[in-house]
């Protein structure tokens, strides 16, 4: 079942009606039932892996919680312990907890690694063995990837790490843990929620609130517009350029990657709006996954605005633990001696960022192109930090005003360009194809393609181009208003009822006339649900 389907609309409607009919205390069971119907709609398939993950995180969290409670009780009952005794006790407790946490994490990630990367790793290993004369057929598994595994694994593991860190108490009801892991709007493409923020909202019953209901529907509609009147059309151009990349050179390749950037933003953020809209109808506020990423003035800032919940997961569970680990601290001492204070101090942090971005890359899929995609971003971010002092000196010497609008615009365009280059790796069919595209892009400077009609040969008619342009303008204006702190739906709510209806009905009519339906479109699929 996909977000854009009659089945989903009916499930949403039925679950919303039942949710508000049920007693407050049991409303969460409606969400669980809806999530189970959604997840197993196409049959059990490999869905049992999700159930296994639920069982593993449930048990792991319970054991960790038991250790946390025992430790606190002991400290409470022995107030005279010295600082050193307390420290030793804490370490001992942490050691026990670490074993339990490791078992839980290894099992959860083993499912993901096995199902998502086994075939790739097997092919690579046997390919290398072949070089050394060992000829054998690489073993492969023929199992469909469980729905949403890349998303729910991160969400589920964040829960047990947070319990390990003592930030959360473990949930005693396994059915409630299952709801947290499998909440139906979000399981396919996120946002990757945190237990502390999402779970209490799922478990407590919400009373019907007309404003929340209305806002939810409006957000869903806005997401649908982004998906059907922008992403789908942009996808046609991107598909053309990325599939037939050898037919194009210079600026067309650049346009293809930029268009893909807009497509994937409209597709993914549109999907997020729809998902958050579905949840808001139940009174549930899900994590924000996008904050107008194309207004970012550096690649680092871009990653703080793009797929925020994935970045935050990597930061909290990979980057920080690595950067602050003893191994990295001692590495820092050594690198300072070799490279001096500034570079030496930063190197371990860069390495931690490198690992985090490598994981972001392969999280998208089992292919070398994703590895390079992750590393490209890491190199740009680390490189810009490393060169920052030099950069500032040069700007000062050239007397560049870095406070004015034109400079900030330049930074935004530069970031968009750098991100677009990275996108070539993530979207191209293979790593070889992405390098060929880069070669083609820099092999010719052909600005005349912008005016000689070439753009109309990329799959969209002039009318469709105009439509896409119009939607981009609307998206830009809305984003700009949000960037200035305006809350669009609240502002709309303050207008006269007639105007509010005009806007909503206008949007629906626009969607019905110009939405990308029909055989040539596959609107049911979202880019990120394949990950």
């Amino acid at each position, binding site marked *: 079942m996909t977000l854009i389907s009659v089945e989903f609309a009916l499930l949403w409607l039925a679950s919303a009606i039942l949710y508000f009919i049920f007693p407050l205390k049991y409303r969460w069971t409606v969400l669980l039932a809806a999530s189970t119907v959604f997840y197993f709609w196409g049959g059990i398939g490999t869905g049992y892996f999700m159930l296994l993950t639920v069982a593993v995180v449930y048990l792991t969290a319970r054991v960790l919680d038991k250790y946390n409670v025992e430790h606190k009780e002991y400290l409470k009952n022995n107030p005279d312990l010295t*600082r050193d005794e307390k420290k030793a006790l804490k370490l001992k407790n942490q050691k026990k907890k670490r074993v339990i946490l490791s078992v839980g994490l290894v099992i959860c990630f083993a499912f993901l690694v096995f199902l998502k990367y086994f075939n790739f790793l097997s092919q690579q290993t046997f390919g290398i063995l072949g070089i050394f004369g060992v000829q054998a057929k690489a073993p492969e598994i023929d199992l469909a990837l469980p729905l949403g595994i890349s998303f729910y694994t991160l969400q589920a593991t964040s829960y047990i790490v947070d319990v390990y*860190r*003592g*930030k959360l108490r473990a949930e005693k009801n396994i059915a409630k843990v299952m709801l947290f892991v499998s909440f139906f709007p979000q399981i396919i493409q996120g946002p990757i929620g945190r237990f502390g923020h999402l779970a209490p909202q799922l478990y407590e019953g919400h009373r019907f609130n007309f404003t929340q209901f209305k806002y939810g529907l409006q957000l869903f509609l806005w997401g649908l517009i982004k998906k059907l009147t922008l992403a789908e059309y942009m996808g046609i151009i991107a598909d053309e350029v990325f599939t037939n990349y050898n037919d194009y050179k210079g600026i067309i390749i650049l346009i293809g990657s930029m268009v893909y950037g807009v497509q994937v933003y409209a597709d993914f953020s549109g999907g997020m709006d729809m998902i958050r809209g579905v949840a808001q109808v139940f009174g549930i506020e899900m994590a924000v996954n996008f904050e107008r990423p194309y207004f970012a003035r550096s690649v*680092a*800032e871009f990653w*703080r605005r793009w797929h925020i919940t994935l970045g935050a997961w990597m*930061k*909290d569970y990979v*980057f*920080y*633990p690595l*950067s*602050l680990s003893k191994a990295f*601290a001692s590495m*820092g001492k050594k690198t300072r001696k070799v490279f001096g204070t500034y570079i030496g*101090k*930063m190197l371990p*942090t860069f390495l*931690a*960022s490198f690992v985090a971005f490598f994981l972001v890359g392969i999280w998208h899929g089992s292919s070398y192109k994703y590895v390079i995609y992750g590393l490209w971003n890491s190199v740009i971010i680390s490189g810009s*930090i490393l060169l920052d002092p030099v950069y500032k000196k040069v700007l000062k010497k050239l007397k560049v005003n870095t406070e004015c609008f034109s400079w900030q615009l330049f930074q935004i365009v530069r970031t968009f360009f750098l991100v677009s280059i990275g996108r070539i790796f993530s979207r191209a069919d293979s790593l070889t194809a992405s390098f060929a595209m880069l070669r083609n892009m820099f092999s010719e400077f052909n600005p005349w393609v912008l005016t000689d009609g070439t753009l109309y040969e990329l799959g969209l008619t002039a009318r469709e181009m105009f439509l896409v342009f119009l939607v981009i303008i609307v998206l830009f204006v809305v984003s700009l208003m949000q960037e200035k702190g305006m809350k669009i739906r609240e502002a709309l709510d303050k207008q006269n009822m007639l105007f509010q209806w005009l806007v909503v009905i206008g949007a629906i009519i626009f969607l019905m006339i110009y939405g990308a339906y029909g055989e040539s479109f596959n609107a049911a699929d979202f880019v990120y649900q394949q990950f």
Partner: protein
Amino acid sequence: MRTAIYERMIKMKEQLIKILAELRPDVDFENETALVTDGILDSFDIVSLVAELNSEFDITIGVDDLEPENFDTVDAMAELINELAD
């Protein structure tokens, strides 16, 4: 006694502001109230800052302490250092 603790806190806060000013001379630390929440300090800044604070105050700031509320203001940071130093 109270004066001694107060003086220790003042001294520690001065040291903290000095470290922060060296790390990010462009930020007005004394008046900012959402350093992490508003993205003024990014994750690279936080890691550098933690390393400095650990060595300067002989404490161990763990991953569990890296919550925005502990780093959003100078006072919150001072409180964290004080707590860990005890």
